[in-house]
């Protein structure tokens, strides 16, 4: 899983350098964020299959908080995009 996600990341970076825009597209940012978040999780899971169940299942609570955080960040990304559009409109006038 780690190797797959690494090759996915490298492909993303390659696409980035060949695309016209020098900025990363939102889906690229989100997928890299996911990658950074879940690659350590998957490597823990390999060493200990019951990692999320260890010490009274406390890490499943952490997973819940991470999802909550990601959801709110996703919404802030969307708001950010809308503000950028408005800024473009204002500067075009």
């Amino acid at each position, binding site marked *: 899983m780690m190797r797959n996600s690494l090759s996915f990341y490298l492909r993303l970076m390659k696409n980035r350098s060949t695309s016209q825009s020098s900025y990363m597209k939102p889906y690229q940012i989100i997928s890299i964020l996911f990658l950074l978040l879940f690659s350590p999780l998957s490597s823990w899971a390999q060493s200990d299959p019951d990692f999320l169940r260890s010490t009274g299942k406390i890490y499943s609570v952490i997973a819940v908080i991470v999802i909550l955080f990601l*959801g709110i960040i996703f919404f802030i990304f969307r708001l950010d995009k809308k503000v950028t559009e408005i800024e473009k409109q204002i500067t075009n006038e």
Partner: protein
Amino acid sequence: MKSPKFWWKLLCIPLGLYVLLAGLLVPLKPGILGIDNYNAEVGGEFNVNVIGYNSNYDSAKKLRAYLRIDSSYVISHKGVKASSANDLNVSFQIPQYLPTQDSFASASIILDSEVDGPSVLPGIIHIVQNEIDQQLGNDLWSSAKFTLEPVVKGFKFPYRNILHETVRNTFFHVAIWFAMFFLLILSLFNSIQYLRLRSYELDINASSYAEVAILFGLIGIATGSIWAKYAWGAFWIADVKLNMSAVALLIYVAYLILRASIQDIDSRARLSAAYNIFAFVAMIPLIFVIPRMTDSLHPGNGGNPALGGEDLDNRLRMVFYPAIILWSIIGFWLSSLNIRIKNIAEKLIAKK
């Protein structure tokens, strides 16, 4: 001096710190994590190793263990030996007969000490008997004096078997659903007001609240799925509460699709306001009524208590209610940003 208008936004800081710190750092009460021997026979000695959680077996002076069948037939331990704070060896002398007409009985193991208070692992030990004599069994199993120590002092969350630490998800999973209802009610109110007053700003309000509410609903489904995996064993099960809340969420996603598919501003506002009222009216029976009429694993349904009993005790409430306020404020804040951005965009279009 006038207090600033954004005081409720500042409230997020203490509330957020309180919910995260208290929600994650307050320890659980002592409990029994597991045992290593599940099968006992009548007339023999039953020896079992108990693994505790947050317990203090080695420092307890009056540690007692009981086996209990049904709610009234109890025997006391023969010997207890603690090897560490969380490791205990208990032996019981099982009487010759069981207090039942069947050839087997399920017994709960109960530990009790003046340090930890009582902890129970229900119905876990399987005892078999060859001959049946219920009258004798009743007499043999009620010999122990069964008195439990008062509950431990200190601010601790309840220890629930199977749930363990995931009881803390109450502050995130359950509270985010409550915040979703808060936002949906705001959205419904604005939709009704739109149909009465036909002011376009009310339509923007209604859709902005609904967008954040749907985001919170999706977070609620995803977090609930994680919780289900570590409490019930699967990410999704064919449970009425889960399926009905997914349907309710889909009805609201259809609201967004409806809005996106209509070009004309006035008909979009009118239709989506009417649909929003329908969606809210459909959600109430889907989430609150139907799951209560049948069996469900989810707390709060089919005879399962949720906001009562031991699932939500007063200690949990002291963090749970602030958590509801916190996520409601954050939802309200996100929607108000959404509303302001949409209003600015509308003004720019109107200028052109």
